[in-house]
């Protein structure tokens, strides 16, 4: 009688720098629910971590393992792993929750009934960054002739937004320069940054993760790149990532979609029930930092999904198929956020059968040398541009992976 929620984590290896805060945040929120509420509607959550080391093959091994143990939902925590488990999950009937990562096209719920990527896709992220740049330049038309550099982890993750960036480059007339960073050379980016120095792009966008991000920030300061023009996707916003550049990294910007710091009810509860009770692995100095909170946010989605599934089915002990409906019918309102102590921490969000992402609002944070500071209001990515493209991408995916199954799952909302 338990709800088995596996966490694919990487507390070791070159990606541990980003993996540890995420894993802690995810783990601690679920533990907090167990400690404070005795689980969800009286059923305890069993949290099982499986170490992937951000390695796709290990991820698949973990997938097989948790599948055999009856996992409710898969959070691969890697775009690469997500891509690999998507086809399997639809056959095995286990929902995949890739929160703000993974395959952007999976937002098309009709093509990908088993995959969820709220609150935003990478394509939303890319469009949001370009939107912010455009705003600073005084309008999208001023981007014409500008050079925007894109430095990315050369893996499923970093490649994901490229089609969109290319599309935007041709639509808006800016030049897109690509600087791939191979996974095994993340800590040795001097060539990429030499090239950047030569090419002098006006803006830099980074899709970095693990040891790649701090190295990139450091290299950027070395070539004296103007940090205010350097944007990271939300995942490149670890506190350590920016701190690696020291004072000189001031001005580095990343996207975000949840609160930073510990001034929220939910974070206080975690502190009280988990951290102070010695049930967390988190280093007190790193408690409630940016990526930790993101882990909390992710677990909240899982918990809410379970709750919704319980509501829908009337069972307390649900299975993976129920979980899918729960996620599909997520509707986290302002009121609900308040109940769970997340007022001001996140925006309300809602998913539907067609839209498994929601393309919600984001905001920009800026590094002030010590911590992340909010640098502007919540704003929406260019949903009108992104959505049709996603639709097309989903169709392409289904075609190239023929025979891709038609959606058979009933839509409950």
């Amino acid at each position, binding site marked *: 009688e338990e709800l088995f929620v596996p966490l694919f984590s990487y507390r*070791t290896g070159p990606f*541990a720098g980003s993996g540890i805060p995420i894993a802690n945040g995810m783990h601690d929120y679920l533990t907090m629910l167990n400690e404070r509420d005795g689980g969800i509607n009286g059923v305890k959550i069993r949290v099982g971590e499986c170490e992937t080391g951000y390695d796709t093959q290990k991820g698949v091994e973990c997938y097989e393992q948790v599948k055999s143990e009856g996992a409710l939902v898969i959070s691969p925590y890697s775009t690469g792993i997500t891509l690999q488990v998507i086809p399997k999950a639809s056959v095995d009937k286990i929902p995949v929750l890739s929160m703000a990562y993974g395959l952007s096209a999976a937002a098309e719920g009709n093509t990908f009934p088993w995959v969820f990527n709220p609150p935003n896709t990478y394509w939303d992220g890319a469009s949001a960054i370009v939107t912010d740049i455009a705003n600073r330049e005084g309008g999208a038309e001023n981007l014409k002739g500008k050079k925007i550099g894109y430095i990315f982890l050369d893996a499923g993750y970093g490649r994901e937004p490229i089609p969109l960036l290319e599309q935007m480059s041709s639509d808006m007339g800016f030049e897109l320069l690509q600087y791939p960073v191979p996974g095994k050379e993340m*800590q*040795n980016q001097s060539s990429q940054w030499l090239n950047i120095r*030569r090419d002098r792009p006006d803006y830099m966008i980074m899709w970095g993760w693990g040891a790649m991000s701090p190295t990139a920030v450091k290299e950027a300061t070395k070539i004296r790149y103007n940090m205010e023009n350097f944007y990271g996707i939300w995942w490149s916003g670890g506190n350590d990532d920016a701190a690696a550049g020291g004072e000189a990294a001031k001005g580095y910007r990343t996207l975000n979609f949840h609160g930073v710091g510990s001034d929220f009810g939910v974070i206080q509860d975690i502190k009280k029930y988990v951290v102070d009770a010695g049930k967390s692995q988190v280093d007190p100095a790193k408690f409630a930092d940016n990526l930790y909170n993101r882990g909390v946010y992710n677990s909240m989605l899982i918990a809410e999904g379970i709750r919704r599934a319980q509501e829908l089915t009337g069972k307390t002990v649900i299975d993976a198929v129920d979980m899918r409906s729960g996620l599909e019918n997520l509707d986290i309102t302002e009121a609900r956020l308040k109940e769970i102590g997340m007022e001001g921490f996140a925006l309300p969000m809602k998913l539907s059968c067609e839209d498994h992402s929601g393309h919600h609002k984001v905001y920009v944070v800026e590094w002030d040398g010590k911590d992340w500071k909010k640098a502007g209001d919540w704003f929406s990515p260019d949903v009108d541009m992104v959505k049709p493209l996603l639709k097309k991408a989903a169709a392409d995916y289904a075609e190239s992976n023929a025979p891709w199954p038609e959606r058979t799952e009933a839509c409950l909302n």
Partner: protein
Amino acid sequence: MDFLYAILIDPFVQMVELPDFLLQVLWEGFVAGVLYALIALGFVLIFKASGVFNFAQGIMVVFAGLTLVGLHEKGVPAYLALILTIGVMGVLALAVERFVMRPLVNQPDIILLMSTIGLTYFLIGFGEFIFGGEPKQMITEELGLPTGSTAFEIGDGGLLILQHIDIAAAVIAIIMVGCLAVFFNKTRIGRALRAVADDHQAALSVGISLNQIWAIVWFAAGIVALTTGIMWGARSDVSFALEIIALKALPVLILGGFTSIPGAIVGGLIIGIGEKIGEIYWGPLVGGGIESWLAYMIALIFLLFRPQGLFGERIIERV
């Protein structure tokens, strides 16, 4: 024609047009080369002394760096941590000698190579077990190493930026090589080392104490690893991701010849500078990223002409 132009002419045009940038590229290559050379040096020490290709050298670099930083994180003052780390490397040397090398005396090269890969796994597991798996920042300032950078104006508007830590790395590498050369030229030990590398059993039979010699060289390699770890850690963080970069030492080593200390240095510089120049000026023609294999190709081409590397010992073939 265009293609030939792009390969044969254009890169040089670029070099001439932006001389400051070329200098920067050379400098970056040089610094990378020095660091490769330092790793290679550790390999050479052990290879020279036992014929063992110590695959674990790369991991020893990380392990030493992690120990240093880890101790500091646990509240040990920087210099004390440094001394303790040297001690840890000493213990490691003794342990390796006792539990790996001694029981495997007189085994074929490949077995010894494998055992060092086993050691690599062990050290990765052990290091992460103790210090955790996340990258750590090197305690550069605490150790009194220079930080910051100096920029030189070159021509009109040109800029050459030198990181102080890189300059320090180059200086320390040179000093280190000097010391090692002296150490090896103390003929008695130096000769004994080479004898061991040739034939373990014969070395035993003339009374060379393998145990002692191995402990010494592994310790020396440990010190080299620590130095490398500090220098490299100062450039990027200390984490096990460095281990893969350490593989680059292999082409360096092969280029220089497995047994040659100057070879390690020259090889390191050739590879470091060669791959940087290649990547920056020719890489874009094929989509970039050629750095990941260029070093090996350079080494391979050299080998075709000199199968024993630039400074390596002749390969003896006789019947």
